[in-house]
């Protein structure tokens, strides 16, 4: 009895964790289950199971085009956000730079500004400077949003880097650029990799910024949103399931790689 009471808080914690976990997973599981339903409406019971919705989705030209478009935007965002993020992190960590705190604060601002505000202000901005809505504007907005995360990840790694490493490279004949390329970049690799995966995932996931800045061509979230407007169907569930599986796989793989390179 006694031990039972002593263990009670722990048991309660454990139990509430599992309730929470079920709450997390159940909606996803339901969504995935419905994608296999052999009927064009969503309701229990599932009745007959089918893979036909997946067959339909992978042949859906709209879906494939939207996927490619999203991936293209994600890659462009990743490249530009990584370059800008690393550059800002180096500036902030350099010794003799004036106004470091200001640079850092400005770079991080987009991470705390609500997405909607960010989107509206960007919309006003591109109108003011005559950039048309569309691909370039979307990439611009996604990049602004992703940069702070790259900066923080790279900066954290940079702070743990022994100052002597670059000195040693310079001592052995490397000019500043070679030392950066052959010592600093490899050292930053885990942070760069993590930051890039983050950029890809947030860009693919982004709806609000894309909605305000996009042109006629839909990205994946915009396409799914448009389809939902026309009524839910297992086809949408199949699309969402594909997106979920792919992004989870990318996330797990990234986690695996960073963990391995740390040990």
């Amino acid at each position: 009895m006694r031990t039972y009471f002593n263990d009670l808080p722990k048991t309660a914690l454990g139990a509430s964790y599992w309730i929470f976990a079920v709450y997390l997973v159940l909606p996803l599981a339901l969504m995935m289950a419905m994608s296999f339903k052999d009927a064009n409406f969503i309701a229990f019971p599932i009745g007959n199971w089918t893979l036909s919705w997946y067959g339909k989705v992978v042949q859906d030209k709209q879906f494939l085009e939207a996927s490619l478009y999203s991936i293209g935007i994600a890659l462009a965002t990743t490249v530009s956000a990584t370059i800008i993020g690393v550059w800002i992190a180096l500036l902030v960590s350099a010794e003799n730079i004036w106004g470091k705190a200001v640079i850092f604060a400005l770079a991080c601002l987009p991470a705390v500004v609500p997405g909607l505000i960010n989107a509206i202000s960007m919309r006003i901005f591109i109108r003011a400077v005559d950039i048309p809505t569309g691909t370039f504007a979307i990439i611009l907005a996604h990049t602004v949003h992703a940069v702070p995360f790259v900066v923080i990840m790279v900066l954290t790694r940079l702070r743990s880097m022994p100052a002597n490493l670059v000195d040693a490279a310079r001592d052995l004949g490397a000019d500043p650029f070679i030392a950066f390329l052959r010592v600093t970049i490899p050292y930053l690799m885990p942070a760069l990799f993590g930051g890039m995966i983050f950029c890809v995932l947030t860009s693919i996931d982004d709806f609000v910024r894309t909605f305000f800045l996009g042109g006629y061509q839909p990205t994946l979230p915009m396409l799914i949103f448009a389809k939902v407007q026309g009524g839910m169907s297992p086809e949408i569930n199949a699309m969402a399931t594909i997106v979920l599986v792919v992004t989870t796989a990318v996330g797990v793989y990234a986690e695996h790689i960073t963990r391995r390179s740390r040990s």
Partner: protein
Amino acid sequence: MQPVVHFKNVNKSYGALTAVDDLDLAIAPGQFVTLLGPSGCGKSTTLRMLGGFDSPTTGEIYLEGKPISHLPPNKRNVNIVFQDYALFPHLTVGRNIAFGLELKGMGSAAIHRRVGELLALVSLEDHAERMPAQLSGGQRQRVALMRALAPDPNVLLLDEPLSALDAKLRQQMQIELKSIQKKTGKTFIFVTHDQEEALTMSDVIVVMNKGRIEQMGGPDELYARPRSRFVANFIGQSNFLEGTVASVSDGIAAVEWRGNLVRADVNGTSPIPGDHVTVALRPEAVFCLSRKPEDRPSLKARIDQRVFKGAHTSLTVMLDNGSALVAQIDPVALSHIEGDDVWVGWRDSDAVLLAK
């Protein structure tokens, strides 16, 4: 011979703090030179200026006769072994050592050969494919040394490279370092705050204090002929006798010390009668006898403390004039204990006058 490294009136200030103060230092090629001094005396700053990581506030540094202050680190033919080794964590041992060779544009076959030779020099031939994290402290130390030697620098700089090792390994590495220096014939400039390390390895010791050179010379010379109280205390131990010069003849000064007349080598100074001076006297130069010797001067004393130290025994004796002296004796030769009377003395040439 032209010095391989020459600091000419080099100053380095950080704001109001003077880290290196009017340093004038010429180093002959092929020597093992040690910069010795307490923490914060400017040793690392001196080394970093030579490596190109700091520039002198005023003055100029010459490497083989050419001024180098304006050159970046990668354009100087000197290499550093850093205190924490600074091995590149993402490269294997072999690639770490090859780093400087690749940047010199050496062909891959030649690099392979040279890396093999260097690893053989420290018996790490079969570790070329290991990562630095898989090595022990001593092995990392050796790899860092070989990486710095690989590009064949004129001068190798070592900033307290042994301080992270345990005592046993440190002694072993001291011997290894010295033998590598002899084998390669290169100039080593070694920084340490450990006087024993300096005495063990150096051809020349440069004792530094507060950014200045206190004294420079061979280990035996510095030990036997310290010029200042700082050196006499920093290298080994000393008794200090403060008195007034009574007379000087043949390089030996007679010093009036608390009512006794003691004799000491003038040690390069030119004292005149009446000068207030300090005499330094090593504990092992002090003899203790149970009877007053006929043939040499001695003073009567009483043993205050007897401490067994293994190979020798340390005696603190109280003289009739009220001052204490520390003597280091052979425990077998003198069995007297606390409270016993003894006669103490020293050879004239073993006591030295200090310049300051």
